[in-house]
């Protein structure tokens, strides 16, 4: 009996040992080695195609099931739930007045009916406004077998439930451990590699090696998230001495961009693991890390950034001017700080495909670790990156106008809604001074421009 158990034990050990070795070899051959050389075996694209087919089937099945049971199917609308008139304040108020009286419309006078415009606009914004929905994950029109994005799932068919269960198993028991292993490998290699490169004296060889190390590790991280990225217009990739600006959806944006090119990162100095990574990265090539106290001093920040861009041997800076994570359906106000520096800007548009996993980081709901776990237990992160042609500030254009111009270009390319609202509204209320805009518009209708008044 004893003998039996003993040999059984060692049998298990041997089996575990073999499977571990097999596991690691497969990992190495199929994932890490291609990552090091920047080669893709096409496994991820195949995976994506298969998933899409399954999702389509699942959605059709739900629709059919709902019809049979006579349930109402909920179709989410990203673009709003109510019909809004695209008329300006002036046009609408004139239209209201037209029906009131046949008085001379050009005489600016107050009508009791003017209030209807503001009233309706106000209630419209209560029912549906442009800003609130930008800070929660985008709603999907079809189901992607993840419970978190599911609105209509009731037990419709056995096959669907089994599929969902299978998906759960695959994601948590196979994909998640695989990805976590890769992530640790990637980060570990980054720290070790950059520290080693840091020992070398400054010069072209060091820059060359540092580039290779950075790219390799970011590519491993990309595979750790199963990110399937399509880069467009790579001829416009940012060059030294410029600033790269992109829309911000999650911290993963950095990994996505940095696996295709080398950038100088900008950010606050952290403690802990992040701090270790930051310190070792800066040994290999110059990044810009700010102490917490320095962040408040806008002049200091601007000076360090401009010093960096003037040195043409240093890498392009990567900045996210929105200042916070937005849910990838829109682009919100770009802060003008980086647009005042006066160098070439390289706009980049990043658009995620939410069917495979929503990359938006809702920092008020999830911490960094739970966010990463969610990312690693989604199907995949699929996104498109467009490198837009470089732009510089034109004559007579101030920083705000320049920022808005770049923002519109990014929004247009990525198919995102271009909003003027500040991303900071995620956490704060809007400033009361914006009310003045509406008041000015309305008063112009009633009493004309201030200049006219002083003349008469």
């Amino acid at each position, binding site marked *: 009996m004893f003998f039996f158990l003993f040999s059984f034990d060692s049998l298990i050990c041997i089996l575990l040992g073999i499977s571990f070795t097999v596991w690691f070899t497969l990992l190495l051959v199929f994932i890490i080695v291609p990552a090091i050389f920047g080669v893709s075996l096409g496994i991820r694209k195949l995976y994506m195609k298969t998933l899409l087919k399954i999702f389509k089937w699942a959605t059709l099945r739900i629709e059919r099931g709902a019809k049979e049971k006579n349930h109402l199917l*909920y179709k989410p609308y990203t673009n709003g739930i*109510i019909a809004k008139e695209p008329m300006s304040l002036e046009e609408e108020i004139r239209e209201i007045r037209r029906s009131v009286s046949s008085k001379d419309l050009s005489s600016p*006078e*107050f009508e*009791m009916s003017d209030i209807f415009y*503001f009233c309706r606009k*106000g209630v419209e914004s209560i029912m549906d406004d442009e800003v609130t929905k930008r800070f929660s994950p985008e709603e999907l029109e079809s189901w992607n077998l993840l419970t978190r994005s599911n609105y209509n799932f009731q037990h419709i068919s056995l096959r669907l439930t089994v599929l969902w269960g299978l998906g759960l198993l695959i994601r948590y028991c196979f994909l998640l451990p695989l990805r976590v292993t890769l992530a640790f490998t990637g980060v570990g290699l980054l720290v070790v590699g950059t520290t080693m490169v840091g020992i070398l004296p400054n010069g072209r060889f060091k820059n060359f090696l540092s580039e290779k190390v950075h790219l390799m590790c970011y590519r491993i991280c990309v595979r750790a998230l199963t990110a399937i990225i399509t880069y467009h217009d790579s001829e416009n990739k940012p060059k030294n001495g410029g600033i790269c600006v992109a829309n911000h959806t999650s911290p993963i944006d950095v990994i996505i961009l940095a696996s295709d090119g080398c950038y100088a990162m900008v950010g606050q100095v952290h403690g802990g693991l992040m701090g270790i990574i930051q310190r070792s990265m800066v040994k290999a090539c110059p990044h810009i890390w700010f102490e917490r106290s320095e962040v408040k001093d806008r002049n200091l920040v601007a000076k360090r950034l401009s010093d960096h861009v003037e040195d043409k041997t240093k890498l392009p800076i990567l900045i996210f001017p929105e200042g916070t994570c937005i849910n990838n359906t829109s682009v919100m106000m770009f802060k003008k700080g980086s647009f005042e520096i006066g160098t070439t800007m390289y706009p980049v548009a990043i658009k995620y495909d939410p069917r495979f996993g929503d990359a938006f980081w809702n920092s008020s709901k999830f911490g960094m670790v739970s966010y990463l776990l969610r990312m690693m237990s989604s199907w995949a992160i699929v996104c498109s990156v467009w490198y837009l042609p470089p732009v510089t500030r034109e004559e007579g254009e101030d920083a705000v106008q320049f920022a808005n111009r770049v923002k519109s270009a990014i929004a247009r390319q990525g198919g995102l809604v271009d909003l003027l609202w500040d991303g900071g509204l995620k956490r704060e209320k809007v400033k009361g001074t914006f*009310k003045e805009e509406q008041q000015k518009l309305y008063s112009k209708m009633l009493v004309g421009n201030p200049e006219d008044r002083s003349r008469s």
Partner: protein
Amino acid sequence: MGCNGSTLAKIHNLDELILETGFSSSHICRLYDRFHALDKDDKGSLNRSDFQNISELAVNPLGDRIINAFFPDGMDLIDFNSFVRILARFRPVDQNPKKEPNAPEPINSRVNKLKFAFQLYDQDKDGKISKNELLQVLRMMLGVQVTEEQLESITDRTIQEADLDGDNAISFKEFKKSLDKVDIEHKMSIRFLR
């Protein structure tokens, strides 16, 4: 989130609500999602602060007055059913209403839309818009862009035109009469996309 059976079950008196407001169950579902998106602390009800968080409402000159319309009788919290009932006033008017002789006024009738607008003016709820109340609303809509004298003259003229019984204030009847020709059904209606 979403409109399955479990969501609908959470709404109290759903059938009553549908009957009273005329919204379909999918509209009420969407409003339910909206209510909860605004209710960031998951209280189950909304307070004034939740409304003030809506950026587009906060920059509306009459924003505060509109918010007050949702909190009648000095209450500080509004639940979902009351929320829907107030929004129901902005439902587009039915094209071919079945007019039963003793049926109550539908919640989105022309008169009720006018009453909503009237309460934005009539703060003390005495049924009349006094000169002072009109001045206040004008001040809100115009801010610091006009002078006190201009405001006074606009107010005086408006009251002169609308006031029919000479009490220097505008009653609801006079308000209704002065807006007789305005296309309120259109201008005070909000249509759901499907």
